[in-house]
């Protein structure tokens, strides 16, 4: 049908927008991991602080995406980056905090106390215990958090087109404003397929990163 | 009361048909406890579930009190039978009171009557109604939950109780206590009970009749003592254990094994008098008691030959005594502990009541008993 013709005719544009889209999500989630995982590890020290941090992150996630994008604008206008790439990346970074922090925190606190005991008994210092025992066990769950963050944010980045960030959302927005179902469906299809592909792709990575001995347990921790 | 006639159950699985139960025929008299016993997968649970039609028999007839269970709507049938499962299964969303009132409500009881019944049942199982009625299962200990589970099954006062490994989920120490409580309650309520177990000791302790299953067949249906004394085949002999004679000892109280009454001597009596009494009956020992009749020591014929003086001078302190109320297994255990072949027995006040001997016990075991009488404590 005509949509198919449209897609075939515009492959380069679709490809370019996909790259744009992925770069926003990729950079943002990447940074989110660099900030979120350490925070997640840090809050395992104190339950009260953990509750507060998790609550704040959850609150941020309840803010509708367009509202958050919108709020970025006046704030970042001061440095002349009100619209476009930066506010999109920052907003996506904020949205990724909750899944990553929460999964890191949960994964580490759920490490079997017996393992911690064994590690301590063997003479491991807390840092060694963290890097050699707790983190490797926590990795699959953290990856599940990253996966959730990526999938959600692929969808949210589609909305970022409204603050000039481009990406695949542009097809959808043009499709709406020009009442052009071809563009609209192209955009919707592209973003959906991207999200599904990312989900499965990251699931594969998650599985590869799971230490052999834990593979069977992975079934229980993969995100729905 | 509960009669199974040629009951069979065949399951169709992807791997072919599996005969879970084959031609089971047995009858549980009213007011008795029947334990269905056997290894995993032997068909005991399947048989139990056919009585309340959670599993539909492939063929055969099951009657309760003369009425064919097939004549009833299975759901209504189940409301007249109490059912207790291994995981207890108290509904976490309901309070203890609501849990107990489930079947009465299903039967259309008046709410006030149902609530009163719940309070009454809680009092019976030693849980203060005012405290426990409004609690939720997650706020009870495992033992408490188990008792409430039994109370729930008894709420509508059903004549029949079916239990599937009801005490399995409790730790061994509490299990003993709860089993004893259940037996006490049963003595009062006299329900007809069928319960599944895989523990021979539990079966021996609780049952009036035991039904042993293997691979879907009923191998033997007998009283616990008969089962232990006369296992029908090698499998059952192995299942009940090589120590089955010792297990039988648990079924009998010391009082039943007492030798005919024997004389005693007092501390101040002459040793010659002791010798005379022993010679009269051809006994090798005689027990010495204090003024209240409590056994203190004994005198041996060989040691006292040609001796003179007060009995107490030639006596040896008794290593141990055993109460009339204890079971023979405990008695034999004490005998082994002190390397003796006889024991002096005392009643509840500690007064000498007679003695038991190893040969006497062995003689007793060779006879077969009526069940039920010796289980009473």
């Amino acid at each position: 049908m005509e949509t198919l013709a449209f897609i075939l005719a515009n492959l380069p544009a679709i490809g370019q927008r996909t790259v744009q889209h992925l770069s926003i999500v990729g950079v943002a989630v990447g940074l989110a991991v660099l900030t979120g995982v350490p925070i997640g590890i840090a809050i395992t020290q104190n339950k009260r602080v953990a509750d507060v941090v998790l609550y704040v992150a959850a609150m941020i996630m309840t803010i509708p995406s367009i509202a958050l994008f919108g709020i970025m604008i006046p704030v970042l206008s001061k440095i002349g980056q009100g619209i476009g790439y930066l506010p999109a990346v920052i907003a996506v970074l904020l949205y990724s905090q909750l899944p990553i922090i929460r999964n890191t925190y949960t994964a580490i606190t759920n490490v079997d106390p017996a393992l911690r005991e064994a590690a301590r008994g063997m003479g491991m210092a807390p840092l060694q215990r963290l890097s050699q025992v707790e983190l490797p066990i926590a990795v699959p769950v953290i990856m599940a958090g990253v996966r959730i963050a990526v999938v959600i944010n692929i969808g949210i980045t589609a909305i970022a087109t409204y603050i000039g960030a481009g990406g695949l959302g542009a097809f959808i927005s043009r499709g709406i404003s020009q009442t052009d179902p071809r563009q609209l469906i192209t955009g919707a299809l592209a973003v959906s397929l991207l999200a599904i592909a990312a989900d499965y792709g990251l699931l594969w990575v998650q599985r590869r990163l799971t230490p052999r001995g834990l593979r069977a347990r992975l079934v229980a921790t993969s995100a729905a | 009361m509960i009669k199974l006639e040629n009951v069979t159950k065949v399951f169709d699985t992807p791997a072919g048909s599996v005969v879970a139960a084959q031609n089971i025929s047995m009858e549980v008299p009213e007011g008795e406890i029947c334990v269905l016993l056997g290894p995993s997968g032997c068909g005991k649970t399947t048989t139990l579930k056919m009585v309340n039609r959670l599993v539909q028999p492939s063929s055969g007839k099951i009657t309760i009190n003369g009425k064919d269970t097939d004549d009833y709507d299975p759901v209504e049938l189940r409301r007249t039978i109490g059912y207790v499962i291994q995981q207890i299964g108290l509904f976490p969303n309901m309070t203890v009171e609501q849990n107990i009132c489930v079947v009465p409500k299903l039967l259309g009881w008046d709410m006030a009557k149902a609530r009163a019944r719940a309070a009454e049942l809680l009092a019976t199982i030693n849980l203060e109604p005012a405290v426990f009625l409004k609690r939720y299962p997650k706020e009870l200990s495992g033992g408490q939950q188990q008792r409430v589970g039994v109370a729930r099954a008894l709420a509508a006062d059903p004549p029949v109780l079916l239990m599937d490994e009801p005490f399995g989920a409790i730790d061994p120490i509490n299990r003993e206590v709860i089993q004893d409580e259940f037996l006490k309650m049963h003595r009062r309520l006299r329900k007809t009970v069928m319960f599944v177990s895989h523990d021979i000791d539990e079966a021996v302790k609780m049952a009036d009749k035991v039904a042993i299953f293997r691979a879907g067949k009923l191998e033997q249906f007998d009283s616990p003592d008969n089962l232990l004394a006369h296992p029908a085949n090698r499998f059952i002999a192995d299942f009940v254990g090589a120590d089955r004679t010792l297990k039988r000892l648990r079924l009998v109280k010391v009082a039943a094994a007492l030798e005919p009454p024997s004389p005693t001597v007092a501390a101040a009596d002459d040793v010659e008098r002791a010798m005379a009494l022993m010679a009269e009956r051809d006994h090798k020992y005689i027990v010495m008691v204090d003024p209240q009749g409590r056994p203190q020591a004994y005198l041996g014929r060989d040691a006292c030959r040609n001796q003179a003086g007060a009995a107490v001078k030639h006596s040896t302190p008794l290593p141990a005594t055993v109460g009339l109320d204890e079971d023979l297994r405990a008695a034999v255990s004490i005998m082994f502990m002190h390397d003796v072949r006889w024991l002096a027995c005392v009643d509840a006040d500690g007064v000498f009541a007679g003695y038991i001997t190893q040969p006497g016990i062995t003689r007793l075991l060779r006879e077969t008993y009526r069940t039920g009488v010796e289980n009473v404590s």
Partner: protein
Amino acid sequence: MQRSWLARTVLVLAFIATFTLGLLVQRSGLFDQIAKYWSDIFYLTRQHVRLVAISGGLAILAGVPIGLALSRPAMRRSAESIMQALNIGSTIPTLAVIALSMTLLGIGALPAIFGLWIASLLPIVRNTYAGVLGVPAYFVEAAEGMGMRPLQVLAHVEVPNALFVTFAGIRTALAINVGTAPLAFLIGGGGLGELIFTGIDLNEPGMMLAGAVPTALLAVLVDLLVGAVSFWLVPRGVNPLR
């Protein structure tokens, strides 16, 4: 438990306080700029709430029964594949869902409500399904053994024990709903999105904030509301929070 309740209220108040503070600090015009739109805010908020309430309510009314239906033994074989399909459907970005509603139903409030309804459906269906399946089988066995009919088992045992998880699903669904509602403006459904998008287009931060702030506050409020309802409605025996 009371401590975390207190912590939460304190947190929400702090959140609102910081926000208001931030605005007051920028009171150099921004505050007045927003105030300009007061009547719009009023009107559009009502529209916004209407969209959320209708689509959310319909999502609950449809989602819970569908979830229950999928959990029945008769549906065992097809249920998993249906859930898979629904899961894939959930990865479709909300913007796309709204846009596709437009291609199907045109513009206006109806396609907006339809789109929001679809977007909110999945978490409710999935959680209801998972919640009922998560009720240990021995509860169902005990209930059947006591003489309950399948429908009674569902109503008295399965659903109450699944309630907590179901409510979690409703909470997620409504969060998605409130978050997507601003997009309704794009297809003519009205709501606070009007202020946000127009504010961005015209480069008027005041207008944009006049839309964004109430939207954010509304989202937080709805979340707290559902949380409270869930806390009180789920019986103590099955409520891990009580």
